[in-house]
């Protein structure tokens, strides 16, 4: 019986991994280009409401694309504020988050006729069983049954991301804008368009993450469903030292932490705690991870710093 629970917990953990990893990859592109993106949560919120609307109107593929597009649009606000007007990155990100909560209510009212949620059971992808793995014995196979196709997509996304960042001219320039914008400018590459691109990719992935959450995980939109996961994605980014593969491992950790209160409440040791304390586990894990790792990582050198030089503005 506990093993069966463990299997289901892994399945849930993989879903939450996908949410956190997609948003975390978004944060990675933005921060590697030199723009801190605290607004991931807000871009996810916009992704949830537009994703749910898109799938209701035109199905899940459209839902994911529209959610990603909405995140992209909101991220452009962040890019204009931070790159062009050189507003403090955290101020702008915090404002984006506050504004997104209001926009979520506004658009939910417009799309669903109620400000706080959509009807349940919005259209989603067919779930599938992973061959071989889903027939693992002792309940562990449950971990790989009824999986959303987006979960393997998220894992596989690591390959093009690695290629883009490390093997292309765009990736090299993006990273140089985040490490040393003065040198970037000195070799004749404009920093601002690179940073716009980094933030735009960031918003697209965060919007996609939100749309995935609404369409594939909860199968409805409701207010507050992101539950701070945009910030947990930032924590995963710190834990992963701004590198895609380590970010993936960090997201797996936080994803499974999310699954504990949902499924492992009856597991040994955990079952001794009151339910409300079990629900604190993901947050506590995040705080401990951040506090324990933050001193030992290397953020992009220029992240968070406004760049004043030529090419700093469009």
């Amino acid at each position: 019986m506990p093993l069966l629970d463990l299997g289901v917990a892994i399945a849930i953990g993989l879903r939450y991994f996908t949410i956190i990893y997609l948003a975390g990859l978004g944060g990675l592109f933005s921060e590697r280009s030199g723009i801190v993106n605290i607004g991931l949560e807000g871009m996810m919120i916009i992704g949830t409401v537009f994703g749910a609307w898109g799938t209701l109107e035109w199905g899940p593929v459209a839902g994911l694309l529209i959610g990603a597009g909405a995140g992209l649009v909101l991220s452009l606000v962040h890019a204009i504020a931070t790159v062009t007007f050189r507003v403090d990155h955290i101020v702008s990100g915090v404002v984006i988050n506050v504004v997104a909560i209001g926009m979520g209510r506004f658009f939910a009212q417009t799309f669903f006729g109620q400000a706080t949620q959509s009807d349940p059971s919005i259209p989603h992808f067919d779930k599938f069983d992973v061959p071989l793995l889903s027939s693992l014995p002792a309940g562990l196979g449950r971990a790989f049954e009824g999986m959303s196709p987006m979960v393997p997509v998220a894992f596989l996304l690591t390959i093009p991301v690695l290629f883009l960042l490390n093997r292309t001219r765009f990736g090299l320039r993006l990273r140089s804008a985040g490490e040393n914008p003065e040198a970037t400018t000195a070799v004749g590459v404009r920093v601002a368009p690179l940073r716009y691109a980094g933030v735009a990719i960031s918003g697209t992935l965060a919007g996609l993450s939100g749309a995935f959450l609404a369409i594939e995980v909860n199968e409805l939109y409701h207010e507050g469903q992101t539950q701070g996961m945009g910030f947990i994605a930032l924590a995963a980014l710190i834990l992963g030292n701004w590198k895609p593969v380590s970010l993936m491992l960090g997201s797996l950790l936080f994803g499974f932490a999310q699954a504990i209160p949902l499924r492992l409440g009856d597991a040994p040791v955990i079952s001794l705690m009151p339910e409300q304390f079990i629900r604190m586990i993901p947050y506590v894990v995040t705080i401990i991870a951040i506090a324990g790792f933050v001193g030992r990582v290397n953020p992009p050198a220029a992240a968070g710093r406004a760049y004043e030089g030529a090419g700093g503005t469009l």
Partner: protein
Amino acid sequence: MAAVAPTRTRPPWVDVIGGQLLALGGAFLFAAIAGALIIQAYGVSPVEVYRIIWVYGTSELSDVGRVLAHATPLIFSGLAVAVAFKAGMFNIGVEGQYIVALATAAAAALTLDFLPAFLLLPAVLLSAMLGGVIWALIPALLKVRTGAHEVVTTIMMNGIALSLVAWALLNPMRTSDQGVIDLRTDIFSTKALIPKIATTFGLEEQIPPSVHLTWLFPLALVACWLVWFLLFRTRLGYEIRAIGSSSGSAEAGGISIQALQIKAFLISGALGGLVGMNSLLGDRGYLAHNYEIGLGFAGITVAFLGRNHPFGIALSAILLGLLARGQDGVAVSFDLPSETLIILEGILILSVVVAYELVRRALNRRRKHAVRTEESSAVPRERADASS
């Protein structure tokens, strides 16, 4: 052209005040126009909407009361955000701090019942501040000791606070009254409650009991003045502002950053603790599971709109109170989602942040230019040169 004197005769503070007013005016105008476009898209007259918002918030004494009652918690949460911001930190955890403070204040109101009224109420308010301080202490210590960014840790503390208070309401604090199905505490004795202004002045005729304008509002204004005094008239405030504007030079000037960051964050937490008091002690008189959330995040809007200045915060809280009251008017009068006003608020705060940044940079450029022209005053420069 060459005849234009390069030296400026205006004192610099005129530029600063003028620039700020210009930024504020420009941002409001931009938001009003952008809002008008959205409202127009619903086929409603924007002028009429703006008029109704004003009418609903100001036409009767009870309307003003509602606006100020709404502003009361926002002043405290705006101040909490601002004090941390002045020290260069972001307290996104006011939300969790006031939620924990609701529980500590309720616990004090119930257990210190034996105190006379003039001691009980201050004790309850102090417990609220203490609750906020405790909840702010953890992220403050983590930031100073480990470098964990307060934005991430305070958000996590918010999540923990919700579960903690849910647990407290279900277990130790739950009312012993078997007849009550609601998840709530016992009802406080009336001497723990904050008196309403209407009752004090015998204005119950004009201001109905559903308006929760209490003496906490004047107290919030006093808090604004105290925070102003702290920030701009004391050594501690000077040091807080120094680390906020330039931690490197503050440290070089012999200021210990870490101790100050903790102090500023705890003051922020104490102010945050008072956010929920108007509804707890001025309205309900008990803590129930469906307490109001989101006031801490609203404080971020209030603080940025008020330029993190205590008096600006009082004004922006009242403005947001007016918009909140205006939502009722819009809902009754037009076929327009009242959430439109939330969007309006969002556009306003974004444009205020950008406008102030533009003005700040323009002033900096001017100051640098002024210094440069003074240095090379032997050769007067032409205006055209300056504006390029």
